């Protein structure tokens, strides 16, 4: 579990009808820890009976200790975290925020950075841009969004010839082939956005002969809702119900079962839990377990993954 700070919301600004920017500051204006481009924080939301924790990329200047900013897209079908942020949080609200963690850092060895964002996946790049500016490293940013309503980045991006925006409702599409050809040797590519965009970029890069080490991706993942299911804990014999709008991790936390975590998005590996028995199918939604590990069904990442079937027993 990460170290946390109690911060106060000082600004709430709708960027588009779907996306809102929140600014947090220390109540006594104490400086916050600075961070590195691409870092995220985990925001705690006491939603009725439930304690939700969602990870959001920081979009403010990594070198600015006066406050942290995030942009949250309202997900009508999500588990409710983003709805909570949109409906319950106003200036003056105090919230518990983790210290920044970075799972999507720039590779400082790169000669040039090519950033590719889809939809709300623009958020980690907003802090990357500030860091690139500070380090004076060459980059280009390609930003695709379905509509202007979704394109929260438009308001936050500086005007620059190196920033290219494609709105698909307006008939513009990102040409990955073109982006990925003729880049200088030593270029690194970073992609963040929906699953489909990430695999499209990684596939296209593979076809164009890009080395694996030069490709970086962050799936924009918050735990998907799903059907309710039940888990049993091997050591205590307890059974725990996971509701449709809860992640397994949230359900375990609500039942006061201690689980280590950091990213809550299936990327860091911290919450890895052994499965003692599994009669059914684990829906692995994480990016941590290997293909073989998934098939074995002997491990589960409770922050992201769900289960359908007769019985799932965790080694807890």
């Amino acid at each position, binding site marked *: 579990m*990460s*170290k946390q700070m109690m911060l106060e919301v000082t600004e709430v600004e709708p960027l588009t009808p779907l996306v809102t920017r929140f600014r947090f500051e220390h109540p006594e204006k104490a400086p916050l*820890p*600075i*961070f*590195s481009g*691409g*870092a995220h924080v985990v925001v705690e939301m006491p939603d009725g009976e439930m304690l939700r924790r969602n990870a959001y990329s920081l979009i403010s200047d*990594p*070198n600015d200790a006066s406050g942290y900013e995030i942009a949250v897209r309202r997900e009508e079908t999500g588990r409710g975290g983003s709805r909570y942020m949109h409906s319950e949080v106003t200036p003056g609200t105090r919230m518990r925020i*983790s*210290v*920044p*963690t*970075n799972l999507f*850092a720039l*590779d*400082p*060895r790169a000669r040039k950075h090519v950033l590719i964002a889809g939809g709300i996946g623009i958020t980690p790049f907003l802090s990357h841009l500030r860091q690139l500016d*500070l*380090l004076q490293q060459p980059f280009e940013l390609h930003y695709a969004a379905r509509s202007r309503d979704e394109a929260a980045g438009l308001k936050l991006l500086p005007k620059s010839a190196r920033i290219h925006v494609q709105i698909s409702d307006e008939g513009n599409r990102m040409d990955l082939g073109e982006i990925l050809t003729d880049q200088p040797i030593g270029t690194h590519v970073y992609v963040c956005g929906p699953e489909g965009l990430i695999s499209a970029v990684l596939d296209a890069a593979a076809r164009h002969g890009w080395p694996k*080490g030069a490709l970086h991706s962050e799936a924009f993942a918050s735990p998907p809702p799903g059907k309710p299911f039940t888990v049993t804990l091997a050591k205590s014999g307890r059974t725990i119900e996971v509701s449709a709008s809860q992640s397994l991790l949230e359900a375990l936390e609500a039942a006061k079962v201690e689980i280590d975590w*950091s990213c809550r998005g299936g990327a*860091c*590996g*911290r919450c890895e839990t052994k499965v003692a028995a599994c009669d059914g199918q684990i829906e692995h939604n994480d990016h941590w377990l290997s293909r073989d590990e998934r098939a074995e069904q002997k491990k589960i990442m409770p922050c992201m993954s769900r289960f359908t079937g007769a019985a799932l027993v965790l080694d807890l």
Partner: protein
Amino acid sequence: MTLQFNDETFRGDYSYFNTEHAIKRLPFPFDRDEYVYSVNIEAHPGGPKGSPFEFRFDVDEHYVSEMKDRAITLDDDPLRCQSLPHMELAGWDLLEIIMVSKAEDYTDLFTLHRDGNRWHWINRPLGIEQRFTFLDPTTLPCGPMEYITRQTQGDFALLHERDGNLWMDAGMVTSQADWSLDFDIGMNFFEWHAPVPKAKQMGVFDKALKFLLAMQQGQSYRRLNWTMTVNPRLDTSPENYHKWGPEKRTITPENVGRKQHLRIELQSFWRLPRSNAIAFPIRCYLACLEDICTQPKWGRRLHRVLRDIDPTLAEYKGFAVNQDMIVNYLSQFDDGAPTSPGIFPDA
């Protein structure tokens, strides 16, 4: 109490010594009467007042002389300090964390004034005063990592995280226990740990790597490691093995108590905020067997640990040739009485 700095050497006449105060606060590395390789990580800083765990970067009576010894080693071999170009930001991170910590923890020794990026650093023990612009390397006499580690006890490695691994891409290494920065630079976590016997089979490294990768800023950790060195020499590098290796043969039953040193490493781990790199300081404490045995609990325990240790580890730790003499010497301090748990001496 203001610190008195010893005037001493770590080579030649080896005039290095520990005062009684320094002995009592040694980070003795054994918490029980046997040794098994383990990751044994705990939060840092944090520990009894006056102990080497109290502050983020411990400054003790050896500070000034250790920094002189580092300067000599660097004069002979500048490659003991290297930083791949992409590690400069991590160097500034390290400089910041050390200057801020020392100025807060040792107000009488160090002062840091910051006005935006215009910084003013005063290091009284070394008589250094420097005004510079943070993040502008042209305003320092050398790179930021070299600058601050010439003023900080212990070796330093800066690890860059990529491809799910950690790469040693910068370091200042002049008091290493037989490993070489010039050899290890650019290697990943598993490559530079390759020589440690047993640990690999135990899966210790997979766990340690996973732990380090998940480490967040504002949470730092430490662990203790140890080895044995003949004479209080800081620079026991492979490059200079011809200078210190033969000294192993100078041990006799008469001089073993003074010449044979327990070399304790206080390793700590820090996630650096601006670069997201990990800093890995390795602080070395040296104490001869005589020093250790002034604390009855430690004398008994060290005897049992070194007597019963796995032979491969005795070899790896470099004292197998003298093990009999060492254990013989220590046996006079072991009356068979039980020892209390934990590393601290009995009051």
